[in-house]
């Protein structure tokens, strides 16, 4: 394209620009150098340092790290039954949250994608996203106000003549997680629904399929990837959280085991080892999703 820059009275800027143009590697290096270095040093380096400590252990009395290779941490994750309970509990609630959010999110996504007029669609989308930015702690705290004994929910039930207290429990944790991650689930479903071509629906209708059948045979297969994507968010975010359980829960989740190991017992080696658990679960989850072909349409 540009081959005549040498003929022109070249300013420094032009020369630099031309030089860079002829040396794409250099340009690439210039562009990627700073962010690449940042990530290597600040982030990836830190991750490697952390995971390397998984093979160390703590001195029982001083609580200081003993820098000797050992598999003790991994052994206790496997051997101590309570960790299995915690992992199963977390994965169970994470799955329940993902499912609930899909059920809750579907009507909103459907409304925004197919029923709402253009202007209202933007309004609904903004309405879905905005709560994400209300401070995360505040949103948990709001539920603490509602769910705790003497709170709004108990009062409402009392008005209806029932005595129900949720307080600090798995149910409370489930509700709060559903609330926190709902927008993350709605958006991919919305995106998938929006991409379903209207012509397919017409064709289905022309061929005599009624609403439900069209949905089941045409729409649903097309939005599965969106649903899976949404469930990935809900699932992985639940796996890593510890604050929700601290504030409204009763029994430890994976995140709490990790947090307590670090923030309280200062057992970074064990925390690092345990932190492989959510990583492994997510890898399996993503692998299964991939085998199901859920990524292809994304």
């Amino acid at each position, binding site marked *: 394209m540009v081959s005549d820059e040498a003929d022109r009275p070249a300013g420094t800027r032009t020369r630099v620009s031309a030089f860079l143009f002829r040396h794409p590697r250099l340009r690439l290096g210039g562009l*990627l150098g700073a962010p690449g270095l940042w990530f290597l040093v600040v*982030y990836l380096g830190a991750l490697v*340092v952390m995971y390397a400590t998984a093979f160390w252990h703590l001195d029982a009395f001083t609580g200081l790290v003993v820098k000797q290779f050992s598999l003790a941490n991994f052994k206790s994750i496997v051997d101590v039954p309570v960790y299995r309970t915690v992992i199963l509990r977390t994965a169970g609630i994470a799955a329940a949250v993902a499912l609930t959010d899909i059920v809750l999110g579907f009507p*909103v996504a459907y409304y925004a994608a197919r029923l709402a007029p253009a202007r209202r669609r933007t309004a609904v989308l903004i309405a879905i996203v905005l709560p994400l930015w209300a401070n995360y702690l505040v949103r948990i*705290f709001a539920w603490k*106000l509602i769910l705790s004994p003497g*709170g709004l929910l108990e009062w409402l039930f009392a008005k209806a003549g029932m005595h129900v207290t949720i307080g600090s429990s798995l149910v409370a944790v489930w509700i709060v997680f559903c*609330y926190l991650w709902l927008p993350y689930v709605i958006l991919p479903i919305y995106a998938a629904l929006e991409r379903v071509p209207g012509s397919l*629906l017409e064709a289905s209708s022309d061929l005599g399929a009624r609403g439900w059948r069209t949905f089941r045979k045409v729409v649903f297969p097309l939005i599965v990837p969106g649903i899976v994507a949404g469930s990935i968010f809900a699932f992985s975010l639940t796996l890593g959280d510890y604050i929700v359980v601290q504030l409204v829960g009763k029994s430890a989740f994976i995140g709490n085991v990790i947090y307590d190991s670090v923030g309280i017992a200062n057992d970074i080696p064990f925390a690092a080892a345990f932190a492989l658990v959510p990583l492994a679960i997510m890898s399996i989850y993503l692998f299964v999703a991939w085998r199901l072909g859920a990524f292809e349409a994304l």
Partner: protein
Amino acid sequence: MESRTVSLAIRVGTGLVLAFLYIPLLIVVIYSFNNSVSQTWPITSFTTRYYSFAWHDPDVRTALATSLTVALFATLLAFFLGSLAAFAVHRFQFFGRNTVSFVLVLPIALPGILTGIALNTTFNNSVRPIPFGVLTIILGHTTFCIVVVYNNVLARLRRTGSSQVEASMDLGADGWQTFRYITWPAIRTAVIAGMLLAFALSFDEIVVTNFTSGTELTIPKFIYNNLRQPRNRPVVNVVAVVVLLVMTIPVYIAQRLAGAEAGTAAGRRATLRGDTEPGL
């Protein structure tokens, strides 16, 4: 395809879910006027005095200053690094290109606690321990803010295509002129939207902050700490409401900027925090 009943059911469902999203926030607003320290319902008497408490609380002011400083610097750094990475990935084919998106998205895709612990361990164990403070918070926040700018800019670059850039070069413009007159106007709104979201993300962050801040107080840390002080909870409610109002402004603007021309779903989703598909 929808029958009238189905359509009605979906509308009602949408209304209920939106109510589910907003009622808790409304509750916090109501509680910020609660006169009593006890947090039971119904509220018996109302007051605005905690707003003046919060306004005069030196901790709130320090926390606000720190939060703003951190968010500002993290956003600027993220702008710089995220845009560079986006250009690199858009313009070049190179070995490991797909890995870049994946790595950039990791700090958000992995649980924040991992990022927090990793940074904490490193700062503690580096050859000369790095003192925890504003600097370390900025380092942590930048790491997960980069991806927001990156996603926004990359999505826009992909949409604008390269024909205009080529035309500009053909007409004799140098690299800078092309950037100044062609590329920048095309990506400007995406960059601003990305920065606003990065700012909001940093302002809201608690997990990584907890592990990288030492004694430094940010607004989320103030909230987290004071939830533990039985008599300070009314002030927390007030700060929560103010944060709520302050946060919605940048997010709203960002949504409008990104949404105005972002006709496609991909563009809109890319502006979202949590849009963490690692270039799948």
